[in-house]
């Protein structure tokens, strides 16, 4: 446990030093998207004024997912493509599983911070435009952000261990890009009834559950996924990715 906490301390120390850059990377996209879809387009009459409200939880979800994935994926890719800083961790008195779980927890802190910063920033922005108020249920939001952070980080671990370092750039275009479009970030899953059974394919996308969790906590009045399905999806994907990611990590780290 000592080694686990020490590793976490190291990761959070480094992350805190990079905070300005991380915030910039996290905030730029959602704020600009809210500005366009929540302010400019409604004024032009191209989308309804409430669209911004639908998007707030979705953009929070994207911020969480991206921060979680990047927080784990980038150090992993660098390690496996040559720096091997991970070897120092593996030589600490801690199991390989412990090293991996620490990575997930550190990535989750990263992801949760992104969600907690992006959410209020967008809520303030929405309020400022006078288009509508968003009142999140904090008691629900905080645990959901924690679970979604862990899910995103374990997903990043799975990606980082399955993908050759030289294809890491491609991941963002080929995997994460489509995920964001088909992850119910810009529309509630409940309303996909219109497109028929195809909507169940969206459940294969972990972002769908992150988006719906944020939707339930941030805009509870909007239509959202049934809670049992939501919880099953969040925990199901979390367990799956943690299992796949830790197993693959051990395979690649210990020759």
């Amino acid at each position, binding site marked *: 446990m*000592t*080694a686990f906490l*020490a*590793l976490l*301390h*190291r990761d959070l120390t*480094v992350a805190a*030093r990079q905070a300005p850059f991380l915030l910039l990377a996290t905030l730029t996209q959602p704020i600009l998207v809210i500005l366009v879809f929540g302010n400019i387009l409604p004024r032009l009459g191209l989308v309804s004024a409430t669209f911004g409200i639908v998007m707030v939880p979705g953009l929070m979800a994207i911020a969480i997912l991206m921060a979680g994935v990047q927080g784990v994926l980038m150090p992993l890719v660098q390690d496996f493509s*040559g*720096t*091997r*800083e991970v*070897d*120092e*961790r*593996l*030589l*600490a*008195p*801690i*199991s390989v599983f412990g090293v991996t779980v620490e990575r997930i927890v550190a990535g989750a802190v990263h992801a949760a911070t992104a969600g907690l910063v992006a959410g209020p920033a967008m809520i303030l922005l929405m309020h400022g435009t006078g288009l509508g108020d968003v009142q999140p249920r904090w008691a629900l939001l905080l645990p959901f952000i924690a679970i979604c952070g862990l899910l995103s980080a374990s997903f990043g671990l799975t990606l980082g261990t399955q993908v050759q370092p030289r294809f890491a750039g491609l991941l963002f275009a080929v995997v994460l890009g489509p995920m964001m479009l088909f992850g119910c970030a810009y529309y509630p899953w409940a309303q996909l009834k219109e497109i028929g059974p195809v909507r169940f394919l969206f459940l294969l996308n972990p972002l769908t559950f992150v988006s719906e969790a944020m939707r339930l906590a941030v805009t509870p009045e909007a239509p959202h996924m049934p809670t049992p399905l939501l919880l099953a999806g969040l925990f199901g994907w979390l367990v799956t990715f943690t299992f796949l990611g830790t197993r693959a990590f051990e395979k690649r*780290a*210990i*020759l």
Partner: protein
Amino acid sequence: MSTLVVENLTKTYPGTRKAPPVEAVRGISFSVEPGEFLGLLGPNGAGKSTTLGCMSTLVRPTGGRIVVDGAEVGKDPSGVKRSLAVVPQMRNLDRELTVRELLVFHGRYFGLEATEREARATRLLDDLQVADKAGAKPATLSGGQQQRVMIARALMHDPKVVLLDEPTTGLDPQARRLLWETLQRLHQRGLTFILTTHYMEEADRLCERVAIVDHGRILTLDTPAALKKSLPGAQVLDLWMRAPQPLAPRLRAVTGVLNIEAVEASDGDADGLERLRLFVEPGEGLLDRVLVAVREGGADLRHVSLSQPSLEDVYIHLTGRGLRE
């Protein structure tokens, strides 16, 4: 009790679709006594680093047993990791931290108290002559400085055995000599080291015992002096030439020539020249007799070198190949 015991270690890396399995280590056994400096000498690909990797728990052995200070690899990895430290071949210092911070964090990973880890970091930075770099990031350090920081980091948790994997590869001669002096100083204070290297001079200078490793096996293991003594003859005479016919039979008949080995051409040799290595008992007229035999054989002799035998000669004697290929 031995600090470290390796018994019949084997490691086969599984094959892939494109590559067959690789038997990197094929049954290596040795033990290291407290305070000893042991070297594993051999060319690249001999299995030295894999052997070291198995000891450090970063490579999973296929077979055999490794015990470090009472803890067995595979059964008590945390115990093993507390007892040993690794200075890897690849410089893997934490790039996000300063030199001092990375030492202190390493101590924290091993559960050292705050005052203890600060005090040790200060002492080791001084000891390894990198105190002036305490506030710098590793990327701004020279190769030799990074190597010394890696040794300082390894010593933070007070290990019983330090594994050094090719510690001077890529260093300039001056940095290499400084590192050798540092290692000798630490060894004199009682630290136990296991070193892999393909520089015979390094093994000769630092190690009390040297295992010559080739193709995953230990060919011989003894003190450098005993290894050199095991060679026939007191000196080594190398001849580089172009010969129209094999010269060895003719040279073998020369008085004072005890043994002859043809050395396979390596990068260091002049292009296309044949190299013969003669183990000789130096005596009056020996060189004359050899030169006459070469001339009579119709060979065009280009280069001659007479030297004391080195560990490389031992390696060549055992394998028929040069170390740097």
